[in-house]
């Protein structure tokens, strides 16, 4: 019964739309699909989407882990507020975030106007996209790593210290390896979110074709041109790449889980 419900729900919600996509793209024929998928504008858009999402996920891993650590281990006034603020990117409509970030980083914005004289441009470049994706992806890393960190006993650190480990050795050999599976999950989630992000990016990206145009936006553009085959082709490529990357990450995770003996 439970299995039946799960399966039918999965089929209804995920499998049917995806197979629809596969069916539409297969109807294109291999030659057409290939021409559409290797179109220079499409390739650039895909590269920008995956590249910025990857960079943003990496940045989020570093700072998300640090932020989670501070939230788990330190007591300071306003801690609960900061903890709640982490979820803001979850709750905020992404368009609002996009507009806010654009106002900040545009050449005439608060931060942008300070950077402009130095020749640094953030808004309307891929860097701006990364900024937006860092914003929306942060809670994914923090919220996956935090509960695992809370589980790490202070005693484990003390045990390492009594055995002679200095702070650096304790972090690099005891704490971080123990967190690796959770960090990887957080990375995967932030990355996946970044690849699919639309609302916050289109405001700050400037959407210059070939330079700062993301793949989801290109799909919308093609749809508006009633160019359904091109839209389908881009979507199919995104699906394949995303699926492959998540598969790889899952495999690494399963391997590390086996190795580290979690989950038993």
């Amino acid at each position: 019964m439970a299995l039946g419900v799960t399966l039918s729900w999965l089929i209804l919600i995920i499998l049917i739309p995806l197979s629809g996509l596969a069916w539409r793209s297969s109807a294109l024929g291999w030659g057409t699909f290939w021409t559409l998928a290797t179109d220079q504008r499409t390739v650039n858009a895909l590269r920008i989407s995956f590249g910025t999402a990857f960079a943003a996920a990496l940045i989020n891993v570093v700072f998300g882990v640090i932020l989670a650590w501070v939230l788990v281990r330190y007591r300071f006034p306003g801690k609960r507020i900061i903890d709640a603020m982490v979820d803001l990117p979850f709750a905020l409509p992404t368009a609002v975030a996009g507009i806010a970030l654009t106002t900040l980083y545009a050449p005439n914005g608060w931060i942008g106007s300070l950077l402009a004289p130095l020749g640094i441009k953030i808004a309307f470049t891929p860097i701006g996209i990364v900024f937006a994706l860092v914003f929306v992806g942060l809670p994914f890393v923090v919220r996956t790593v935090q509960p695992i960190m809370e589980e790490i006993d202070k005693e484990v650190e003390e045990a390492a210290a009594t055995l002679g480990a200095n702070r650096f050795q304790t972090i690099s050999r005891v704490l971080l390896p123990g967190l690796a599976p959770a960090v990887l999950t957080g990375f995967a989630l932030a990355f996946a979110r970044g690849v699919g992000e639309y609302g916050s990016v289109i405001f700050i990206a400037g959407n210059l074709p070939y330079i700062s145009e993301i793949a989801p936006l290109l799909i919308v553009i093609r749809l508006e041109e009633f160019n359904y085959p091109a839209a389908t082709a881009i979507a199919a490529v995104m699906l394949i790449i995303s699926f492959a990357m998540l598969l790889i990450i899952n495999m690494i995770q399963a391997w590390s889980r086996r190795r580290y003996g979690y989950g038993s």
Partner: protein
Amino acid sequence: MEVRVQNIRKEFGRFPALNDVSLDIRSGELIALLGPSGSGKTTLLRLIAGLESPTEGTVYFGNEDASRKTVQQRNIGFVFQHYALFRHMTVLDNVSFGLTIRPSGRRPAKADIRKRALELLDLVQLSGLEKRYPAQLSGGQRQRVALARAMAVEPNVLLLDEPFGALDAQVRKELRRWLREIHDRTGHTTVFVTHDQDEALELADRVVVMSKGQIEQIGTPDEIYDTPNSPFVFGFIGESNILPVRVENGQLWIGDRSIGVSAQGEADGPGQLYFRPHDIELLDSSDGCITGLVTVTRRVAGTRHVELDIDAAHSKVEIELPPEKVTSDHSRIAFRPTRWKLFRD
């Protein structure tokens, strides 16, 4: 190695956890810190380890002042109640950890580290499990890994914080005996914290009884049990009865009767009589004894526990009798303590 704790005071915020505690631990000794929770026993252990630093006072390892050394420099072995194993490492890696992180000058060769770790696993009877991860072991096995890990660094002193506290009764008893064996074989100076008096009395060479941040008594298990030096120790270790009495002309009185116990040299006035349920003799006469009405009798293994209402003192005591001695409820029993201690306010 000898460990000396001198006039240690430790405050957490403004709350004193330890108050002027001094303790000499002899080399090779197995010593128990026993006390109720909040007595400061774990704090004392952590101070010796260097996991806490004292507000005042000094810790010596041998003749060396260890107070200035960090926990890393003290070279101690510490075993935690909840094992604190590194769960992403195999059993072998856990045990080797302390040696592999040494700076290259003091680090043994890889093969030697492995050999030593395997020897220790053999000592703690876990041979063949070196490739397992902690999650794949039982609680008792995890604690043995933790002990092997602590011993790998050849510690100056082995410190165990409620090492059997998280284990079930059966495993606990087994490990208790086994820890004694390991200690006798390796000869490490060992201090362990426990709130379980059976554990302390059975296992330790000497027991340190602590209460409210102070040491109440230090002694062998026999001394602690047979000659407790304070009402706290008497009440905390083993079973005990307390009766309010009065000293008059070197005799103890309850109400208007003498109980046939002489307290020569004690000044006249009130006091508390402490005695253990099994340190009594039954009497036939009703002169010079304590009498009470039987309220409840219970058979507990090899003895019969009898609860008495001591009417003259308005209090209850429990005595232990041989099982063949059958008493009916509401019958009257006369007895006299054979071993006792009088505490005056």
